């Protein structure tokens, strides 16, 4: 079964992460406190807390991404049989994509795609 390689890779990756953590736990000196506790901000002293409210634009981008993610997942089986279904399949998929483009145009007109 060819997926055994995937499983082996997952195991290898997990053991590399766990190995790094375990070796650090065994070897590194343990001195917490002070400046080590502040959030890392490229060497700058951070102002305020690490927990900030994110722009709602991220959420809307994520939502749009998810919709077109599902679209891509559904296009994949169509792409596999593209040659055998021919023009009829192309038209069927075109209708599918057109309906989604209406949503994209709506979001665009609403200014979702504009960044601050």
């Amino acid at each position, binding site marked *: 079964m060819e997926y055994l390689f995937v499983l082996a890779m997952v195991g290898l990756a997990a053991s590399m992460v766990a190995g790094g953590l375990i070796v650090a736990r065994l070897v590194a000196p343990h001195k917490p406190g002070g400046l080590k506790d502040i959030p890392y901000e490229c060497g700058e002293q951070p102002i*305020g807390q690490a927990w900030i409210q994110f722009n*709602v634009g991220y*959420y809307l981008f994520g939502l749009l991404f*998810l919709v077109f993610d599902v679209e891509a997942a559904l296009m994949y*089986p169509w792409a596999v049989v593209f040659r055998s*279904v021919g023009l009829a399949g192309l038209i069927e998929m075109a209708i*599918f994509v057109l309906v989604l483009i209406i949503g994209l145009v709506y979001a665009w007109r609403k200014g979702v795609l504009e960044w601050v």
Partner: protein
Amino acid sequence: MISDATYTVMFYGLSATVILLALLAVNARQLLRAALGLMGMLALSAGLYVMLRAEFLAGVQILVYVGGIVVLIVFAIMLTRSSELLEDHPAKLTRILGATFSIMFMLIACYALGTTKFTESESTQAVRDEVRDIGLALLDRGANGYLLPFEAISLLLLVAVIGGTVVARKTPPKHQPFTTGGDLRGETVAHPPLVQDDEHVVESKS
């Protein structure tokens, strides 16, 4: 081919990890840890689908659930400002009710699984080219085809786009496009403009 014993060991190992991650997702007090547990759980259930030879389903699981929905959940968590939401301390009544309904659901699921008679599929070769079959069935206009549900999915996604846009932002004022929508009183002055001067940029980033 791998032996049945290896297969069984793999199945139980994967299942146990999935259950552990699901427990982490439910029990973690930190919401982001719970989201991480959910992500691992969904990713490993894709492994279970692969073991069932449902490769397309596994791919969709990774693509949509792990790559999309968990990211959306994490964004939703990060959108909330209140730090009370970061740690979850449910009331006792909520816990008892939740546990009761979970156990009831588990019992019903066990009963349903126990009483269903599963028949073994006769042709194990038929699942070889699975994605091809899905594609043909999706675009088939005949009585056994799924063309109408397929096109209905696009309408469902359209509703999701429009609904999400409408809920997340109503009609914002021109000078302030990214807020909850500018509907709240005094919102136009609540946040300093992001690109006015350097001081404000530093403040709003950190």
